């Protein structure tokens, strides 16, 4: 019996599942242990916006009762957390914003629904950049999340609370969303695994929209194996999301066994330009040689328009967000200014007081690029460049199976270091944004340390190549132990 005496938080999701299935551990014990970490470590890191202790313990008790049931799902009794932009019935969904500080959704997002149906137990909702707009978690109305590796540093963003919670061994897995790198970059900065699937692979229904053509739900875990387990449940067509794709979902866990030998891996020349921290560059190169030593074939590929991905993204994403966020007008839900003089005052003050600075900056940028007289020069031009970037990837994937490189240009940076300079902040997503613009799947895997800070290796695949990405990441994790290193404070 591992149970009562052992610290269960060190186990992966897969190991926990095994323990529950065999009866070695109970969901109630596991849930209680993790909830204790939520209240201690979780508070220190400011990783949570809401904690659902009572419902979680009740669900765990039910799960233990139903342990023998034939209808047991793959995640039976397993605790997870959700990024706070997945709508959850009965628990507020804030998006890290004052605008939705007290908003309780009347329905569950498809992702939430599918994971719950598989038996997962939600411990709470994680902190995030406001409406997922940010790369450091500092735009949250609820304050920044701290990086478990060094509390003075940012965990990255926007899924910073999810990444910190997983890195600190508070929970084995957390959902996230990725519009320009919001799963992969925080995964890299916290030494966790983060996967952003192909656009359309996972339903967006119930995910509060930031930029609809780029948003995609994924997960942050410590291992590719755990990510495979969760993604297999989350993925698949949803009739409530017209952009979700009706494409069969493979057994990702079974696919993990695929060997590295013969895998063709593209290395992008532009990835190793001056902007990349030398230590990060060294770790990525070392990771590539590990893959090579196992029989992967490294080839150089060219993504000539890579340098245009950030400016393109910062036209497309704000344009869509300026429209998506129009529904927050103080009329039906969310923050409403008190005693408005008239309709215009209601709009201006509800939005002025409800949204933070970064959200306003993007709404204004987006409104500008869609305006008459500027539309062609910005929005239309950005769409053309987006096509070119997609085309670059298409050509590259005609030659290679996977593109590998750094996830982020630097390891975790200090809280406050980039808040005054949005452009520098935006450049943190230089390696991740391309996959969003082209709708491709990408995964970040821990590949070593720069000083005492984790570094991430990013793998990007062709459309619906998640299985291959997960297998490659999993095989790499079989050869390395970076994912087993844990922050000192989180023993």
């Amino acid at each position, binding site marked *: 019996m591992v149970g009562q005496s052992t610290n269960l938080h060190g186990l992966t999701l897969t190991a926990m599942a095994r323990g529950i299935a065999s009866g070695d551990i109970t969901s109630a014990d596991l849930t209680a242990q993790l909830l204790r970490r939520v209240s201690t470590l979780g508070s220190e890191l400011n990783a949570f916006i809401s904690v659902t202790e009572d419902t979680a313990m009740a669900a765990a008790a039910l799960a233990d009762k139903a342990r023998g049931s034939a209808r047991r799902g793959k995640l039976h009794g397993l605790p997870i957390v959700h990024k706070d932009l997945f709508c959850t019935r009965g628990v507020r969904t804030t998006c890290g914003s004052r605008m939705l500080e007290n908003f309780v959704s*009347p*329905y569950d997002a498809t992702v939430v629904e599918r994971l719950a149906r598989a038996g997962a137990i939600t411990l709470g909702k994680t902190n995030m950049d406001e409406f997922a707009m940010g790369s450091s978690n500092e735009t949250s109305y609820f304050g920044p999340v701290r990086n478990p590796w060094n509390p003075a540093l940012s965990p990255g963003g926007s899924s910073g609370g999810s990444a910190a919670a997983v890195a600190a061994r508070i929970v084995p897995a957390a959902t996230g969303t990725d519009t320009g790198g919001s799963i992969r970059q925080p995964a890299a900065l916290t030494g966790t695994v983060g996967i952003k699937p192909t656009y359309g692979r996972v339903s967006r229904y119930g995910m509060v*929209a930031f930029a609809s053509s780029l948003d995609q739900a994924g997960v942050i875990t410590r291992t590719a194996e755990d990510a495979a387990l969760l993604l297999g449940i989350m993925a698949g067509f949803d009739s409530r999301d*017209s*952009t979700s794709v009706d494409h069969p979902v493979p057994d990702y866990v079974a696919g993990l066994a695929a060997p590295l030998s013969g895998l063709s891996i593209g290395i992008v020349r532009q990835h190793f330009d001056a902007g990349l921290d030398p230590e990060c560059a060294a770790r990525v190169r070392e990771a590539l040689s590990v893959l090579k030593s196992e029989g992967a074939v490294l080839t150089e590929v060219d993504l000539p328009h890579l340098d245009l991905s950030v400016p393109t993204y910062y036209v497309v994403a704000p344009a*869509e967000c300026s429209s998506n966020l129009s529904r927050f007008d103080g009329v*039906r839900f969310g923050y409403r200014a008190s005693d408005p003089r008239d*309709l215009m005052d209601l709009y201006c003050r509800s939005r002025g007081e409800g949204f933070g600075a970064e959200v306003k900056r993007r709404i204004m940028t987006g409104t500008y690029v869609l*305006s*008459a007289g500027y539309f062609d020069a910005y929005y239309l031009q950005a769409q053309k460049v987006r096509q070119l970037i997609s085309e670059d990837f298409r050509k590259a994937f005609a030659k290679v199976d996977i593109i590998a490189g750094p996830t982020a240009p630097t390891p975790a940076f200090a809280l406050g270091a980039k808040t005054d300079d949005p452009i520098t902040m935006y450049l943190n997503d230089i390696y991740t944004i391309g996959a969003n613009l082209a709708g491709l799947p990408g995964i970040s895997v821990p590949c070593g340390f720069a000083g005492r800070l984790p570094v991430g290796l990013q793998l990007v695949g062709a459309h619906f190549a998640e299985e291959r990405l997960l297998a490659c990441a999993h095989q790499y994790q079989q050869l390395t132990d970076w994912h087993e290193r844990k922050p000192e404070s989180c023993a």
Partner: protein
Amino acid sequence: MKAGWEVVIGLEIHCQLATRSKIFSGASTAYGATPNVQACLVDLGYPGVLPVLNGEAVRMACLFGLAVNATIATRSVFARKNYFYPDLPKGYQISQYELPIVANGEMMIRGEDGTEKRIGITRAHLEEDAGKSIHEGLGQYTGVDLNRAGTPLLEIVSEPDMRSAAQAVTYLRKIHSIVRYLGISDGNMQEGSFRCDANVSVRPAGQKALGTRTELKNLNSFRFIDKAINFEIARQIGLIEDGGQVVQETRLYDAERDETRPMRSKEEANDYRYFPDPDLLPVEIAPAYVQKLRESLPELPDAKKTRLQSQYGLRPEDAEILIGSRELADYFESLAGTTAAPAPLAANWVIGELSAALNRDNLDIGHGKIGAAELAGLLNRISDRSISGKIAKEVFEAMWAGEGSADQIIRKKGLIQITDSAAIEAIVRAVMDAHPTQIADYRSGKDKLFGFFVGQVMKQSGGRANPEQVNEILKKRLSDAR
């Protein structure tokens, strides 16, 4: 219209499609429910919800396109029209902008001089309706009812091809008739399922360049459209003749005062910031789908009119009235197919007595009190000379009042026509005996008195004597006497 001027009119018609659920959600489209009970989370624009296109709305838009000889786009795109308004839950309306589903159609109308005139249909696109603001009974507040939000609309935009208010009304009536024939809209103008905005401008006759136009809104009946446009034409001409200029603006028609007034002007021009809606995929329509729809098209008004004339020998003006609605024409055809009476007589009864009764009781053809088969029973008695046309009207009223079938009423009231010559002879003799003075006058040449005798005989017979026989016998007896 004032000489020396030419009027240019284009119409934008908003036609509510008769789908059961909304264009992007599963909520009901039924009219008149308690505010906000027919608005689901998608209609309310809740965080995280997504639109899913109703295929039925696409089918209906395509049917319309085919009916007006338009091109059905193999690929059309939904776009967001961004603006803030309390009845617009998402802060944008999902519409179609650069790539509409229907383009380049046309409609032939009959101009005032009787010639055929082509009205171009620039485009027809799908969009969602907004909700509505409610001001009554809420004091200083404005209420919002989102039941209508998300109702599918087809916006039909014409070329500026109409040259008078009358032409505009003719065109509008024809579109109205077509959408109802197609079964894609109930066309109810009172409930707002069929609304129209008119773009009106004037220019000196012979001038090529268009004058400055105004857009007239709030035109919710055919009569108001005619009046509003005519008012606006006179206003614009008057303005220019007095040395003024027409300002491009939106004007509301006030039916009570019969005038148009500028709408409260917005502080600045609206910039709707249209862009393709990333939540919806482009609508791709296969040629096979269009072909199948084409085969399912019902007979349209123009074709039906031609057929009614040739098949039933109807006069053009009667056929025109009968095709006014598909239901009316169907009623006529059903009647003509059942009764032994000649079709033109059947047409007369539908256009005359039946329509008058429907009008009087404010009923539509589907809810009339006499079905086609029952009316056929009545017409059969006319054609077999059991009753006269005049008696038939009496029977019709009794039928309308629910007193039974034509035969039952004729029997019950003893209305069967007297065709027995001996019986009529007897009445004629009695009348002649009773009016010696008139007979003397008639003999002395007052031929007009013949009508008097006919009237007396009919009166004596309770209206039942066969009028032709009465005429015949009277003539004979009176001339005998002379």
